């Protein structure tokens, strides 16, 4: 990781590593005990490890020549992909374990750290932020350089973003295990982790803008619009939802400044736009690059790209209140959330349709190439889950679906079918390129992975559709005498077969992800020297 840095840059990197260790020391010394002290210890460990790696390289004379500027900067991307796969296995593994606990709650171990409530955010943060976030950052660096034909505008900042981001993920996951949480869904990490993420994210944003300004292509490709919307809006969402007052500077606990129904509205404005800008916009950026590249087809409609982008950016912002139908939230806010969610369908389908139409003339490739098939299926599930999302946002529909497992099924049709599928498609396109190879080391394993993933997703989603609709209907059923038809426990017992099926579906999906991680490991370890002559920046940049 240090070979591409000049001696000067290594000195800066060393200072930053020591500064991180020092920051950890301050945290640990101030807090003395508890979660914050332990997290300080983790920062010390990461800082010292980096200091040793960078410090050791100071004595090496191998410095990159000026010709490094004639290549794209891919070393951090490789690290990002590795972290993506590590978090995939961790996050999905915890998910399968939790699914099994729903079926078999007696298996919960006695330790507080392994209770369902603490593990559940480890699963959600692990897959959304660990797996999804690393994939987004790594592919954004890749796509940004290729579509601007410019090298990343910084040698250390990409590393800072990726390592800093993974430290945040580590703090988050280990904090949950120790019971540290703000109790805001998808925004559980406490105030110091939130502040750290702001620093990392602003660095990311600056790096992205600076690289865009170096672009050689006069126009900015649509994938970059999406990535940029993802970076910018996630920063806004994260800051607003996490404004909190720490109990003291030496404790992990804090109180949010928002209260009551305002807090609920801010939380779900954040929550739904996290779906929009983290789990949708960024991955659309991925789709808009990797799908046409893999299919070797032009994007079907430039105009649909525009409609889709501005439609998604504008409509999504209003849709969050559909999470609070039939609550203390005023009716008019619910109506706005519902109607904007319905209007959102058209720009969403514009992107799904655009992606599928792009495959015209490449259907034989979809048939033969599992990697492209991943991306095709991703586009289909994107269309399905956005339709389902708009449908569930309609108030009377929501009265049936809300609080049931249908919601969970909907989320997983988006995350497994759309988000994870496009990530795997991107990984299988990108890892051979980064390893100087034409194909993955085990091409047949990609095919296996595809069928495991599609089978897992379908079993999971279909079983939770059934579960949710059954649950919703049972909860609202009254007999002719006006008494409830079912006791609550009967509605729980009715879930058993579906919970068993969802565990199986999740396990299949996890098996595919493990196969992918092993395949990538072997591919990276058997890297070759294949160089694509056209895959380079167009103009030499001035030395940094």
């Amino acid at each position, binding site marked *: 990781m240090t070979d591409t840095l000049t001696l000067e840059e290594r000195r800066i990197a060393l200072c930053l590593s020591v500064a991180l260790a020092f920051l950890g020391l301050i945290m640990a010394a101030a807090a003395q005990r508890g979660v914050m002290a332990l997290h300080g210890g983790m920062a010390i460990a990461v800082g010292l490890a980096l200091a040793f790696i960078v410090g050791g390289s100071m004595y090496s004379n191998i410095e990159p020549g000026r010709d490094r500027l004639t290549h794209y900067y891919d070393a951090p991307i490789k690290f990002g992909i590795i972290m993506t796969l590590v978090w995939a296995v961790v996050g999905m593994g915890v998910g399968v374990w939790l699914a099994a606990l729903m079926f078999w709650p007696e298996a919960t171990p006695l330790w507080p750290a392994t209770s369902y409530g603490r593990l559940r955010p480890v699963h959600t943060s692990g897959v959304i932020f660990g797996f999804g976030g690393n994939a987004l950052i790594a592919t954004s660096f890749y796509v940004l350089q*290729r*579509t*601007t*034909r410019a090298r990343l505008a910084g040698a250390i900042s990409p590393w800072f973003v990726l390592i800093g981001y993974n430290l945040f993920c580590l703090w988050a996951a280990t904090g949950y295990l120790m019971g540290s949480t703000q109790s805001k869904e998808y925004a559980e990490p406490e105030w110091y982790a939130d502040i750290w993420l702001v620093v990392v994210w602003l660095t990311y944003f600056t790096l992205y803008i600076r690289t865009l300004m170096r672009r050689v*292509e*006069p*126009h900015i*490709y*649509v994938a970059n619009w999406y990535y940029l919307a993802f970076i910018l809006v996630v920063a806004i969402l994260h800051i607003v939802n996490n404004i909190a007052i720490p109990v003291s500077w030496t404790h992990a606990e804090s109180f949010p400044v928002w209260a009551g129904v305002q807090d609920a509205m801010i939380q779900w404005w954040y929550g739904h736009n996290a779906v929009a800008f983290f789990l949708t916009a960024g991955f659309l950026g991925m789709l808009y*690059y990797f799908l*046409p*590249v893999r299919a*070797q*087809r*032009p*994007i*079907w*409609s*430039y*105009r*649909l*790209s525009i*409609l889709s982008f501005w439609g998604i950016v504008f409509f999504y912002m209003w849709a969050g209140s559909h999470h609070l139908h*039939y609550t203390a939230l*005023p*009716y*008019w806010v*619910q*109506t*706005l959330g*519902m*109607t*904007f969610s*319905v*209007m959102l*369908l*058209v720009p969403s*389908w*514009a992107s799904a*349709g655009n992606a599928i139409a792009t495959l*015209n*003339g490449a259907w034989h490739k979809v048939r033969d190439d599992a990697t492209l098939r991943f991306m095709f299926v991703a586009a289909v599930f994107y269309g399905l889950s956005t339709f389902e999302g708009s449908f569930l946002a309609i108030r009377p529909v929501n009265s049936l679906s809300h609080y049931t497992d249908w919601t969970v099924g909907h989320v997983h049709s988006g995350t497994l079918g759309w988000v994870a599928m496009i990530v795997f498609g991107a990984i299988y396109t990108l890892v051979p390129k980064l390893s100087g190879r034409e194909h993955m080391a085990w091409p047949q394993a990609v095919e296996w992975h595809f069928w495991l993933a599609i089978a897992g997703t379908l079993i999971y989603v279909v079983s939770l559709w059934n579960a949710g609709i059954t649950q919703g209907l049972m909860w609202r059923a*009254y*007999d*002719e*005498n*006006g*008494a*409830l*038809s*079912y*006791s*609550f*426990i*009967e509605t729980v017992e009715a879930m058993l077969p579906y919970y068993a099926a969802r565990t199986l579906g999740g396990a299949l999906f996890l098996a595919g992800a493990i196969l992918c991680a092993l395949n990538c490991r072997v591919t990276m370890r058997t890297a070759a020297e294949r160089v694509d002559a*056209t*895959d380079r920046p167009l103009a030499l940049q001035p030395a940094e």
Partner: protein
Amino acid sequence: MSTDPKEFPAADSHTGQREIDPVTGYDTTGHEWGGIKELNTPFPRIALIALVLTVAYSLVSWVLLPAWPIGRDYTRGLLGLDQGQVAIERYRDLASTREEWLSRFETPDFATLSEDAALMATAMPAAARLFRDNCAVCHGETGSGGIEFPVLNDNHWLWGGEPDMIAETLRVGINSSHPDSRLAQMPSFDWMDRTDRVALARYVAKLPEGDAATDDPGADLFAQNCAACHGEGGVGGMLNGAPSLADGAVIYGQDVHTVMNTLRSGRQGVMPSWIGRLSEAEINLLALYVMRLQDRGGGGQS
């Protein structure tokens, strides 16, 4: 930007023509990003139609429903809906159907109620669901109890098994926060000699089998310390919350080890008061249901 096609990016400067995609027949926009191009496809009609339809849906919704904020107020919508009002009305509709038969349980005339077969056929399935939603978490789905939680489908009672007694227990609870709560405490006998405690525990453990000898060293101890609440010979039935020790029914267990624990630490089980959570009629309904559980001997739902 110039509208002259000859000046479009990547256009042929003589003809103004751009690269044509052979598959779709459309020309490209003339841009290229690391190998990616875009087609200059016209805007699909169906997307426009869909956009118009969804916007129309929204406009209609905004006119009919509360929708847009205006200062400190909001547009009320032509339907004049208020979600709180709607919820209350729908609840009242349901409740009125239910009240038709449930209101009869407001008067605790249990004998008359039991005799009305038609009423029972309506009420007992509803009672079973009430029981499962409120009582089953401790007493089991069929009232079969468990360790620390009394069995309800047998004939052994702490505070009486008549419906009015059960209803009173439901109302005030046992060792609950209700001012008239039934109170029962098994005190700790840790002041007693351990040898005495062992003797007592052995005696108590033998009581249900009926072979406890009167000359047992525990018998005297029992008479002096326990009989006041548990009755002579531990037969119970004093309606003071102290269980019979001579029958097979147990709450905490009646083996020597468990009785030793009970003697050392004492016991004070809690049953909450259900006033406020259940209506008077629901409490009476449940009382009748619980009474009938013992007849079915483990039967749950009819």
